[in-house]
């Protein structure tokens, strides 16, 4: 779906590149999380996915379309929708449903179809009952869901969330992760989620780890966290349950390699108890 071919990017005043030789292909229908510290290049990478930034070296292809070709920019942005960090500066109108309609109106979608798309988009983020309300009365999590609905109404194939949960409280974060997971599962939308929270990345089917502009590793969560020492060296977090499992193993209770979530741990403990 999206191909990054040895992408390098240098900001105008930057001494070292913000992205260096990043090669990554994002498959149609996958849920990819991109993690890394501030300054690791993860947001710079996200902005390459819909031609907000163009590579200084290498190439980005979206469904075969080169993002460097200005004639294709519009078509690319229709395919790849982006939700940003701050819930307060992505909504532009005073009524929720008008905000969601804003994108498709700009695309020249016929009014009747807009109505359908808006209703469907609001339903898929669970915000139907706020359709005629005012965006500024909503919580951060609800605002981000409206921003997502605005993207959905444009019927993109890929949804990119650029630290869309960073400014939300735990409840808001959960709302967004649940919404995005459901959209991925039920509608088959390709999701790319940029986040600094390892626990959130566990919802994804694949994790790409960025460090100092380079792609450190990419793989299913279980494989990525097996390289705990490497992650540590780059001062990245390891899930708490993984730490607990490792501590238990050191004390002679081996519950298996791949425990990452509370659910994994609870299952492993019960399985192991029923055996003994």
């Amino acid at each position: 779906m999206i191909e990054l071919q040895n992408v390098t990017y240098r900001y105008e005043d930057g001494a070292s590149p913000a992205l260096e030789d990043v090669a990554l292909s994002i498959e149609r229908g996958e849920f990819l999380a991109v993690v890394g510290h501030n300054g690791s290049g993860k947001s710079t990478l996200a902005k390459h996915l819909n031609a907000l930034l163009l590579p200084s070296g290498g190439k980005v292809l979206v469904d075969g379309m080169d993002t460097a070709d200005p004639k294709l920019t519009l078509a690319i942005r229709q395919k790849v929708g982006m939700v940003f960090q701050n819930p307060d500066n992505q909504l532009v109108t005073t009524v929720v449903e008008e905000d969601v309609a804003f994108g498709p109106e700009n695309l020249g979608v016929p009014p009747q179809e807009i109505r359908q798309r808006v209703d469907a988009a609001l339903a898929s983020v669970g915000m139907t009952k706020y359709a005629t309300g005012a965006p500024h009365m909503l919580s951060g999590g609800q605002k981000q869901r409206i921003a997502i609905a605005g993207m959905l109404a444009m019927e993109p194939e890929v949804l990119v969330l650029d630290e869309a949960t960073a400014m939300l409280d735990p409840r808001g974060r959960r709302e967004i992760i649940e919404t995005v997971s459901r959209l991925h599962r039920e509608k088959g939308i390709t999701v790319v989620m940029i986040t600094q929270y390892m626990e959130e990345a566990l919802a994804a089917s694949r994790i790409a780890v960025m460090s100092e502009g380079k792609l450190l590793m990419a793989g299913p969560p279980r494989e990525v966290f097996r390289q705990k020492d490497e992650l540590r060296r780059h001062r990245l977090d390891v899930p708490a349950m993984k730490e607990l499992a490792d501590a238990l193993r050191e004390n002679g209770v081996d519950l298996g390699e791949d425990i990452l979530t509370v659910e994994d741990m609870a299952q492993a403990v019960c399985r192991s108890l029923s055996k003994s």
Partner: protein
Amino acid sequence: MPIVVEKLNYTYMQGSALTDAALKDIGLTVRDGEFLGLIGHTGSGKSTLVQHLNGLLQPTSGRVTVDGYDMADKKQRRLGRRLVGMVFQYPEYQLFEETVAKDVAFGVRNMGVPEAEAMARADEALALVGLEPGRFRDKSPFELSGGEKRRAALAGIIAMKPKYLVLDEPMAGLDPLGRRAILATIDSLRATLGCAVVMISHAMDDLADRAERVAVLNEGSLLMVDSAENVFAQSELLVSVGLDVPQVSRLCMELRARGADIPSGIYDRAMMEKALLRLFGKGAEA
């Protein structure tokens, strides 16, 4: 002597159509030298409550005293306020001076401390928050990274040598590295200065690791105040008011729900490790 909050009620926009009770009948004591965590979901009144601790807000009814100073009295408030250092959310937005040292010394100078001593205290505070004075003193605050700015803002409060340090989500918006640096700074401040800390946070795992007591706010009322142990033991209740609980607490609930013989209320990793080892018969001596 402690900070004592008695029967505090606070209503926004009193007497207007928008009257909204933000805090209802709060009774709470902040003890000398303790680490008190303050939790509650967004809108529960946490920030409104801490603004009463240094007299920025005045109760609609009820009383706040800091070491005996009545914060409703203008004269006493000035004295009480000096004891309470307040670090707001995103404090780095409040840096404004030409150099880091001047910024850090600003509050101290306002207290009437002579220039030379103010600068000495600024250096001392910078060192305490892990910003080496020689390197950072003469920099512009705007040259610092996000995490460094936040530590500089914290230093400005530390320089005033508060007896109580009130922190409103000190880690908000920082990446994991920045979060760890701030937490380490807070821990070392407590160790060296012995000040009491009141910390608002959504990071339950971090609070579980260091708070002695935890107060829980829900819709403007105090749901409970108790030892961290007793509060996190009630994870079902916390979840029911929309709060996160430490992951270990969630594991504890899950295991008990599946019938595993684990005591209720385990919230920290070391305790869980012991309980599981015991469960697998590897236990008691460990």
